[in-house]
Protein backbone atom coordinates (compact mmCIF):
# COMPACT_ATOMS: atom_id res chain seq x y z
CA UNK A 1 0.00 0.00 0.00
CA UNK A 2 1.35 3.46 -0.81
CA UNK A 3 2.28 5.93 1.90
CA UNK A 4 2.13 3.50 4.75
CA UNK A 5 3.24 5.05 7.96
CA UNK A 6 6.05 3.35 9.72
CA UNK A 7 5.94 3.05 13.47
CA UNK A 8 9.26 4.12 14.94
CA UNK A 9 10.24 1.52 17.47
CA UNK A 10 12.69 3.73 19.27
CA UNK A 11 9.92 6.11 20.27
CA UNK A 12 8.52 3.40 22.47
CA UNK A 13 11.46 2.78 24.78
CA UNK A 14 9.94 4.52 27.77
CA UNK A 15 6.42 3.27 27.09
CA UNK A 16 7.49 -0.35 26.86
CA UNK A 17 9.47 -0.12 30.08
CA UNK A 18 6.43 1.28 31.87
CA UNK A 19 4.13 -1.36 30.41
CA UNK A 20 6.48 -4.17 31.41
CA UNK A 21 6.36 -2.92 34.97
CA UNK A 22 2.58 -2.46 35.00
CA UNK A 23 1.97 -5.80 33.32
CA UNK A 24 3.05 -7.50 36.52
CA UNK A 25 -0.16 -6.24 38.11
CA UNK A 26 -2.42 -8.10 35.69
CA UNK A 27 -4.66 -10.62 37.40
CA UNK A 28 -3.27 -14.11 36.99
CA UNK A 29 -4.91 -17.49 37.33
CA UNK A 30 -4.51 -17.62 41.12
CA UNK A 31 -6.30 -14.31 41.54
CA UNK A 32 -9.12 -15.36 39.25
CA UNK A 33 -9.36 -18.63 41.14
CA UNK A 34 -9.77 -16.69 44.34
CA UNK A 35 -12.57 -14.68 42.77
CA UNK A 36 -14.33 -17.77 41.48
CA UNK A 37 -14.01 -19.55 44.81
CA UNK A 38 -15.30 -16.54 46.73
CA UNK A 39 -18.30 -17.35 48.90
CA UNK A 40 -20.01 -14.02 48.37
CA UNK A 41 -19.98 -11.41 45.59
CA UNK A 42 -18.38 -8.99 48.06
CA UNK A 43 -15.43 -11.28 48.52
CA UNK A 44 -14.90 -11.47 44.77
CA UNK A 45 -15.12 -7.71 44.51
CA UNK A 46 -12.46 -7.38 47.16
CA UNK A 47 -9.93 -9.12 44.92
CA UNK A 48 -10.54 -6.46 42.28
CA UNK A 49 -10.21 -3.64 44.78
CA UNK A 50 -7.00 -5.13 46.12
CA UNK A 51 -5.64 -5.28 42.59
CA UNK A 52 -6.14 -1.53 42.38
CA UNK A 53 -9.25 -1.51 40.21
CA UNK A 54 -10.94 1.80 39.63
CA UNK A 55 -9.25 5.05 40.55
CA UNK A 56 -8.97 7.08 43.66
CA UNK A 57 -12.36 8.53 44.18
CA UNK A 58 -14.24 5.64 42.63
CA UNK A 59 -16.81 4.90 45.26
CA UNK A 60 -18.33 1.47 45.32
CA UNK A 61 -21.07 1.54 47.89
CA UNK A 62 -22.45 -1.88 47.17
CA UNK A 63 -21.39 -4.88 45.19
CA UNK A 64 -24.01 -4.06 42.57
CA UNK A 65 -21.94 -1.10 41.52
CA UNK A 66 -19.14 -3.33 40.26
CA UNK A 67 -19.85 -2.14 36.73
CA UNK A 68 -18.84 1.36 37.66
CA UNK A 69 -15.54 -0.03 38.86
CA UNK A 70 -14.96 -1.93 35.61
CA UNK A 71 -15.86 1.11 33.55
CA UNK A 72 -13.41 3.29 35.45
CA UNK A 73 -10.74 0.67 35.09
CA UNK A 74 -11.21 0.59 31.35
CA UNK A 75 -11.02 4.38 31.18
CA UNK A 76 -7.86 4.27 33.21
CA UNK A 77 -6.22 1.83 30.79
CA UNK A 78 -6.94 3.97 27.76
CA UNK A 79 -5.80 7.12 29.49
CA UNK A 80 -2.54 5.45 30.40
CA UNK A 81 -1.95 4.11 26.91
CA UNK A 82 -2.79 7.38 25.25
CA UNK A 83 -0.33 9.06 27.55
CA UNK A 84 2.38 6.53 26.74
CA UNK A 85 1.89 6.08 23.02
CA UNK A 86 3.51 8.73 20.82
CA UNK A 87 0.52 8.65 18.45
CA UNK A 88 -3.06 8.05 19.47
CA UNK A 89 -4.38 6.65 16.24
CA UNK A 90 -3.67 3.00 16.87
CA UNK A 91 -4.88 3.02 20.46
CA UNK A 92 -8.03 4.86 19.48
CA UNK A 93 -8.68 2.27 16.81
CA UNK A 94 -9.68 -0.10 19.59
CA UNK A 95 -12.19 2.44 20.85
CA UNK A 96 -14.04 2.62 17.56
CA UNK A 97 -16.41 -0.17 18.53
CA UNK A 98 -17.52 1.98 21.47
CA UNK A 99 -17.93 5.03 19.24
CA UNK A 100 -20.07 3.17 16.75
CA UNK A 101 -22.13 1.69 19.55
CA UNK A 102 -22.71 5.15 20.98
CA UNK A 103 -23.65 6.49 17.57
CA UNK A 104 -26.24 3.71 17.27
CA UNK A 105 -27.67 4.60 20.66
CA UNK A 106 -27.90 8.29 19.81
CA UNK A 107 -29.52 7.71 16.42
CA UNK A 108 -32.02 5.16 17.67
CA UNK A 109 -32.95 7.30 20.65
CA UNK A 110 -33.57 10.22 18.34
CA UNK A 111 -35.64 8.23 15.84
CA UNK A 112 -37.78 6.62 18.50
CA UNK A 113 -38.15 9.75 20.59
CA UNK A 114 -36.60 8.32 23.74
CA UNK A 115 -33.80 9.41 25.99
CA UNK A 116 -30.59 7.45 25.71
CA UNK A 117 -30.37 6.50 29.37
CA UNK A 118 -27.26 4.83 30.62
CA UNK A 119 -26.43 2.51 27.78
CA UNK A 120 -23.46 4.38 26.38
CA UNK A 121 -20.13 2.62 26.47
CA UNK A 122 -17.21 4.73 27.54
CA UNK A 123 -14.47 5.57 26.88
CA UNK A 124 -14.83 6.40 23.22
CA UNK A 125 -12.32 8.07 20.94
CA UNK A 126 -14.96 10.80 20.59
CA UNK A 127 -16.49 11.84 23.93
CA UNK A 128 -20.16 10.89 24.12
CA UNK A 129 -21.38 14.42 24.84
CA UNK A 130 -19.55 15.75 21.81
CA UNK A 131 -20.85 13.00 19.59
CA UNK A 132 -24.40 13.66 20.79
CA UNK A 133 -24.13 17.32 19.96
CA UNK A 134 -22.60 16.74 16.55
CA UNK A 135 -25.29 14.28 15.54
CA UNK A 136 -28.03 16.50 16.90
CA UNK A 137 -26.78 19.47 14.92
CA UNK A 138 -26.06 17.28 11.90
CA UNK A 139 -22.63 18.83 11.91
CA UNK A 140 -20.15 15.99 11.77
CA UNK A 141 -17.24 17.58 9.98
CA UNK A 142 -14.90 16.90 12.86
CA UNK A 143 -15.53 13.17 12.84
CA UNK A 144 -13.29 10.81 10.87
CA UNK A 145 -14.57 10.59 7.31
CA UNK A 146 -15.71 6.96 7.41
CA UNK A 147 -17.72 7.53 10.57
CA UNK A 148 -19.23 10.72 9.28
CA UNK A 149 -20.32 9.13 5.99
CA UNK A 150 -21.76 6.12 7.82
CA UNK A 151 -23.84 8.25 10.19
CA UNK A 152 -25.11 10.35 7.31
CA UNK A 153 -26.03 7.19 5.45
CA UNK A 154 -27.95 5.96 8.52
CA UNK A 155 -29.95 9.15 8.76
CA UNK A 156 -30.74 9.09 5.07
CA UNK A 157 -31.61 5.38 4.98
CA UNK A 158 -33.79 5.56 8.06
CA UNK A 159 -35.70 8.52 6.71
CA UNK A 160 -36.41 6.59 3.55
CA UNK A 161 -37.16 3.15 4.99
CA UNK A 162 -38.02 3.57 8.68
CA UNK A 163 -36.15 0.33 9.41
CA UNK A 164 -33.95 0.64 12.51
CA UNK A 165 -32.08 -2.61 11.80
CA UNK A 166 -30.39 -0.92 8.85
CA UNK A 167 -28.68 1.41 11.33
CA UNK A 168 -26.96 -1.60 12.89
CA UNK A 169 -25.99 -3.04 9.53
CA UNK A 170 -24.49 0.20 8.25
CA UNK A 171 -22.62 1.11 11.41
CA UNK A 172 -21.27 -2.38 12.18
CA UNK A 173 -19.86 -2.66 8.71
CA UNK A 174 -18.43 0.84 8.82
CA UNK A 175 -16.72 0.13 12.12
CA UNK A 176 -14.67 -2.70 10.66
CA UNK A 177 -14.03 -0.80 7.45
CA UNK A 178 -12.74 2.01 9.63
CA UNK A 179 -10.48 -0.32 11.61
CA UNK A 180 -9.13 -1.90 8.44
CA UNK A 181 -8.40 1.50 6.97
CA UNK A 182 -6.47 2.62 10.05
CA UNK A 183 -4.52 -0.62 10.38
CA UNK A 184 -3.84 -0.60 6.66
CA UNK A 185 -2.29 2.84 6.91
CA UNK A 186 0.45 1.46 9.12
CA UNK A 187 3.28 -0.68 7.95
CA UNK A 188 3.20 -3.05 10.90
CA UNK A 189 2.56 -6.73 10.52
CA UNK A 190 1.30 -7.21 14.07
CA UNK A 191 -1.44 -4.59 13.78
CA UNK A 192 -2.40 -5.61 10.25
CA UNK A 193 -2.75 -9.24 11.21
CA UNK A 194 -4.59 -8.52 14.44
CA UNK A 195 -7.26 -6.45 12.73
CA UNK A 196 -7.55 -8.97 9.93
CA UNK A 197 -8.15 -11.72 12.50
CA UNK A 198 -10.79 -9.61 14.22
CA UNK A 199 -12.58 -9.15 10.91
CA UNK A 200 -12.33 -12.84 10.00
CA UNK A 201 -13.61 -14.00 13.38
CA UNK A 202 -16.49 -11.55 13.17
CA UNK A 203 -17.37 -12.84 9.72
CA UNK A 204 -17.31 -16.43 10.93
CA UNK A 205 -19.57 -15.46 13.81
CA UNK A 206 -21.95 -13.64 11.47
CA UNK A 207 -22.00 -16.68 9.22
CA UNK A 208 -22.73 -19.09 12.08
CA UNK A 209 -25.51 -16.89 13.41
CA UNK A 210 -27.12 -16.38 10.02
CA UNK A 211 -26.97 -20.13 9.49
CA UNK A 212 -28.58 -20.74 12.86
CA UNK A 213 -31.40 -18.38 11.93
CA UNK A 214 -31.80 -19.91 8.45
CA UNK A 215 -31.20 -16.55 6.83
CA UNK A 216 -30.82 -16.29 3.08
CA UNK A 217 -27.66 -15.48 1.20
CA UNK A 218 -29.25 -12.21 0.24
CA UNK A 219 -29.25 -11.15 3.87
CA UNK A 220 -25.86 -12.60 4.73
CA UNK A 221 -24.25 -10.85 1.80
CA UNK A 222 -25.34 -7.52 3.20
CA UNK A 223 -23.76 -8.05 6.60
CA UNK A 224 -20.48 -9.81 5.87
CA UNK A 225 -17.52 -7.48 6.20
CA UNK A 226 -15.44 -7.14 3.05
CA UNK A 227 -11.66 -7.15 3.35
CA UNK A 228 -11.17 -10.25 5.47
CA UNK A 229 -8.82 -13.07 4.57
CA UNK A 230 -11.58 -15.67 4.13
CA UNK A 231 -13.04 -15.55 0.64
CA UNK A 232 -16.70 -14.49 0.62
CA UNK A 233 -17.27 -17.40 -1.75
CA UNK A 234 -16.55 -19.86 1.06
CA UNK A 235 -19.44 -18.43 3.05
CA UNK A 236 -21.74 -18.44 0.06
CA UNK A 237 -21.03 -22.05 -0.86
CA UNK A 238 -21.58 -23.38 2.65
CA UNK A 239 -24.60 -21.47 3.83
CA UNK A 240 -27.06 -24.20 2.91
CA UNK A 241 -24.71 -27.11 3.48
CA UNK A 242 -24.12 -28.91 6.79
CA UNK A 243 -21.83 -27.07 9.18
CA UNK A 244 -19.17 -29.77 8.77
CA UNK A 245 -18.60 -28.67 5.18
CA UNK A 246 -17.73 -25.16 6.28
CA UNK A 247 -15.31 -26.48 8.89
CA UNK A 248 -13.73 -28.62 6.21
CA UNK A 249 -13.45 -25.65 3.85
CA UNK A 250 -11.43 -23.51 6.24
CA UNK A 251 -9.60 -26.39 7.85
CA UNK A 252 -6.25 -25.31 6.51
CA UNK A 253 -6.58 -21.65 7.40
CA UNK A 254 -5.44 -20.47 10.81
CA UNK A 255 -8.98 -20.77 12.08
CA UNK A 256 -9.12 -24.49 11.33
CA UNK A 257 -8.51 -25.82 14.81
CA UNK A 258 -10.59 -23.06 16.40
CA UNK A 259 -13.61 -24.13 14.37
CA UNK A 260 -12.98 -27.83 14.87
CA UNK A 261 -12.91 -27.27 18.61
CA UNK A 262 -16.07 -25.19 18.69
CA UNK A 263 -18.24 -27.30 16.44
CA UNK A 264 -18.87 -29.84 19.16
CA UNK A 265 -20.33 -27.29 21.55
CA UNK A 266 -22.30 -25.61 18.75
CA UNK A 267 -23.90 -28.90 17.76
CA UNK A 268 -24.57 -29.87 21.36
CA UNK A 269 -26.00 -26.62 22.68
CA UNK A 270 -26.89 -24.65 19.57
CA UNK A 271 -25.23 -21.69 21.23
CA UNK A 272 -22.19 -19.78 20.06
CA UNK A 273 -20.85 -18.94 23.50
CA UNK A 274 -18.24 -21.69 23.25
CA UNK A 275 -17.08 -20.36 19.91
CA UNK A 276 -16.94 -16.82 21.26
CA UNK A 277 -14.77 -17.92 24.12
CA UNK A 278 -12.39 -19.74 21.81
CA UNK A 279 -12.22 -16.72 19.48
CA UNK A 280 -11.22 -14.56 22.41
CA UNK A 281 -8.57 -17.10 23.34
CA UNK A 282 -7.39 -17.09 19.73
CA UNK A 283 -6.84 -13.33 19.87
CA UNK A 284 -5.15 -13.60 23.27
CA UNK A 285 -2.71 -16.22 22.05
CA UNK A 286 -2.01 -14.03 19.03
CA UNK A 287 -1.25 -10.91 21.07
CA UNK A 288 0.87 -12.97 23.46
CA UNK A 289 3.57 -12.69 20.80
CA UNK A 290 3.90 -9.10 21.94
CA UNK A 291 5.59 -10.29 25.10
CA UNK A 292 8.68 -11.17 23.10
CA UNK A 293 8.90 -7.82 21.35
CA UNK A 294 11.49 -5.62 22.97
CA UNK A 295 10.58 -2.23 21.54
CA UNK A 296 7.62 -1.11 19.53
CA UNK A 297 3.91 -0.63 19.80
CA UNK A 298 3.19 -4.35 20.17
CA UNK A 299 3.58 -4.58 23.98
CA UNK A 300 1.14 -1.69 24.37
CA UNK A 301 -1.47 -3.41 22.28
CA UNK A 302 -0.77 -6.67 24.04
CA UNK A 303 -1.39 -5.00 27.37
CA UNK A 304 -4.54 -3.33 26.07
CA UNK A 305 -6.03 -6.58 24.83
CA UNK A 306 -4.92 -8.35 28.01
CA UNK A 307 -6.70 -5.76 30.09
CA UNK A 308 -9.86 -5.98 27.96
CA UNK A 309 -9.91 -9.74 28.52
CA UNK A 310 -9.25 -9.29 32.20
CA UNK A 311 -12.17 -6.88 32.57
CA UNK A 312 -14.38 -9.26 30.62
CA UNK A 313 -13.40 -12.09 32.97
CA UNK A 314 -14.02 -9.92 36.02
CA UNK A 315 -17.49 -9.16 34.67
CA UNK A 316 -18.23 -12.84 34.02
CA UNK A 317 -17.27 -13.69 37.59
CA UNK A 318 -19.18 -10.82 39.20
CA UNK A 319 -22.36 -11.53 37.23
CA UNK A 320 -21.97 -15.20 38.07
CA UNK A 321 -21.47 -14.56 41.76
CA UNK A 322 -24.39 -12.15 42.03
CA UNK A 323 -26.70 -14.64 40.31
CA UNK A 324 -25.51 -17.72 42.20
CA UNK A 325 -24.08 -19.46 39.15
CA UNK A 326 -22.04 -22.52 40.07
CA UNK A 327 -18.26 -22.19 40.14
CA UNK A 328 -17.81 -24.81 37.45
CA UNK A 329 -19.96 -22.95 34.98
CA UNK A 330 -18.21 -19.67 35.73
CA UNK A 331 -14.87 -21.35 35.21
CA UNK A 332 -16.03 -22.81 31.94
CA UNK A 333 -16.89 -19.34 30.68
CA UNK A 334 -13.65 -17.66 31.69
CA UNK A 335 -11.25 -16.59 28.97
CA UNK A 336 -7.61 -17.54 28.96
CA UNK A 337 -5.49 -14.91 30.70
CA UNK A 338 -2.56 -13.08 29.10
CA UNK A 339 -0.21 -13.80 31.97
Amino acid at each position, binding site marked *: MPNQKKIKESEFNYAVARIRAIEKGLLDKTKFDRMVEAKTPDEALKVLLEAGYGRTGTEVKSVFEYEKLLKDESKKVYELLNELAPGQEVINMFLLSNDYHNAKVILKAEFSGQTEGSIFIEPGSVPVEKLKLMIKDRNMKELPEIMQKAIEECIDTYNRTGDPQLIDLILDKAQYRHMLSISGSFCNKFINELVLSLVDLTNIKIFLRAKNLNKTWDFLQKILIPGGSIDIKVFFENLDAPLENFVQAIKYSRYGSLLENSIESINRTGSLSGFEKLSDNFITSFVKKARYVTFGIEPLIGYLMAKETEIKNARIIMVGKIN*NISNDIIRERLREAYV
Partner: protein
Amino acid sequence: MYKIGVIGDKDSILGFKAIGMSVFPVTTSNEAEEILDKLAREEYAVIYITEQFAKDIVSTIDKYSDDRFPAIIPIPGNQGSLGIGMMGVKKNVERAVGADILFRDE
Protein backbone atom coordinates in the same frame (compact mmCIF):
# COMPACT_ATOMS: atom_id res chain seq x y z
CA MET B 1 -51.01 4.37 25.85
CA TYR B 2 -50.56 2.16 28.88
CA LYS B 3 -47.17 0.69 29.55
CA ILE B 4 -45.75 -2.52 30.94
CA GLY B 5 -43.17 -2.31 33.72
CA VAL B 6 -40.78 -4.96 35.00
CA ILE B 7 -39.16 -4.84 38.44
CA GLY B 8 -36.41 -7.18 39.61
CA ASP B 9 -32.69 -7.80 39.73
CA LYS B 10 -30.94 -6.45 36.68
CA ASP B 11 -29.73 -9.70 35.17
CA SER B 12 -33.16 -11.30 35.34
CA ILE B 13 -35.14 -8.53 33.72
CA LEU B 14 -32.91 -6.74 31.25
CA GLY B 15 -34.09 -8.93 28.39
CA PHE B 16 -37.60 -7.50 28.66
CA LYS B 17 -36.28 -4.20 27.43
CA ALA B 18 -35.74 -5.73 24.01
CA ILE B 19 -39.47 -6.27 23.58
CA GLY B 20 -40.41 -2.76 24.56
CA MET B 21 -41.19 -3.02 28.26
CA SER B 22 -39.81 -0.55 30.76
CA VAL B 23 -37.37 -2.24 33.10
CA PHE B 24 -36.49 -1.07 36.60
CA PRO B 25 -33.51 -2.88 38.11
CA VAL B 26 -33.50 -2.86 41.90
CA THR B 27 -31.24 -4.45 44.48
CA THR B 28 -33.22 -4.22 47.73
CA SER B 29 -36.86 -4.81 48.59
CA ASN B 30 -37.14 -1.22 49.82
CA GLU B 31 -36.20 0.01 46.40
CA ALA B 32 -38.65 -2.42 44.81
CA GLU B 33 -41.41 -1.08 47.04
CA GLU B 34 -40.67 2.52 46.13
CA ILE B 35 -40.60 1.82 42.42
CA LEU B 36 -43.78 -0.21 42.60
CA ASP B 37 -45.65 2.60 44.34
CA LYS B 38 -44.30 5.07 41.83
CA LEU B 39 -45.31 2.98 38.81
CA ALA B 40 -48.76 2.32 40.25
CA ARG B 41 -49.40 6.05 40.18
CA GLU B 42 -48.22 6.36 36.60
CA GLU B 43 -49.61 4.88 33.43
CA TYR B 44 -48.71 1.26 33.96
CA ALA B 45 -51.37 -1.34 33.26
CA VAL B 46 -49.22 -4.38 33.99
CA ILE B 47 -46.24 -4.64 36.31
CA TYR B 48 -44.17 -7.79 36.40
CA ILE B 49 -42.08 -8.30 39.48
CA THR B 50 -39.67 -11.14 40.17
CA GLU B 51 -40.75 -13.51 42.89
CA GLN B 52 -37.54 -12.88 44.81
CA PHE B 53 -38.72 -9.36 45.50
CA ALA B 54 -42.44 -10.03 45.46
CA LYS B 55 -42.17 -12.33 48.46
CA ASP B 56 -40.77 -9.52 50.62
CA ILE B 57 -43.29 -6.86 49.71
CA VAL B 58 -46.53 -8.82 49.71
CA SER B 59 -48.38 -6.15 51.68
CA THR B 60 -47.54 -3.47 49.13
CA ILE B 61 -48.66 -5.71 46.29
CA ASP B 62 -51.91 -6.55 48.07
CA LYS B 63 -52.70 -2.87 48.33
CA TYR B 64 -53.37 -2.86 44.59
CA SER B 65 -55.11 -6.20 44.28
CA ASP B 66 -58.58 -4.67 44.14
CA ASP B 67 -57.70 -1.85 41.78
CA ARG B 68 -58.29 -2.10 38.09
CA PHE B 69 -54.77 -0.92 37.35
CA PRO B 70 -52.06 -1.98 37.67
CA ALA B 71 -52.14 -5.75 37.46
CA ILE B 72 -49.11 -6.88 39.43
CA ILE B 73 -47.84 -10.24 38.34
CA PRO B 74 -45.00 -12.10 40.03
CA ILE B 75 -42.68 -13.87 37.60
CA PRO B 76 -39.84 -16.32 38.29
CA GLY B 77 -36.39 -14.72 38.39
CA ASN B 78 -33.18 -16.35 37.24
CA GLN B 79 -33.00 -18.30 40.49
CA GLY B 80 -35.98 -20.40 39.53
CA SER B 81 -39.61 -20.25 40.58
CA LEU B 82 -40.91 -19.96 44.11
CA GLY B 83 -44.46 -20.78 43.09
CA ILE B 84 -45.83 -17.41 44.17
CA GLY B 85 -47.04 -16.48 40.70
CA MET B 86 -48.99 -19.71 40.27
CA MET B 87 -50.48 -19.37 43.75
CA GLY B 88 -51.76 -15.95 42.78
CA VAL B 89 -53.35 -17.27 39.61
CA LYS B 90 -55.00 -20.04 41.61
CA LYS B 91 -56.32 -17.63 44.20
CA ASN B 92 -57.77 -15.33 41.58
CA VAL B 93 -59.43 -18.15 39.67
CA GLU B 94 -61.05 -19.36 42.87
CA ARG B 95 -62.30 -15.89 43.57
CA ALA B 96 -63.70 -15.43 40.09
CA VAL B 97 -65.45 -18.74 39.48
CA GLY B 98 -65.84 -20.00 43.01
CA ALA B 99 -63.85 -23.19 42.56
CA ASP B 100 -60.34 -24.17 41.67
CA ILE B 101 -60.84 -25.35 38.11
CA LEU B 102 -57.18 -25.28 37.11
CA PHE B 103 -55.27 -27.30 39.65
CA ARG B 104 -57.75 -29.59 41.28
CA ASP B 105 -55.93 -32.73 40.31
CA GLU B 106 -52.81 -31.76 42.19
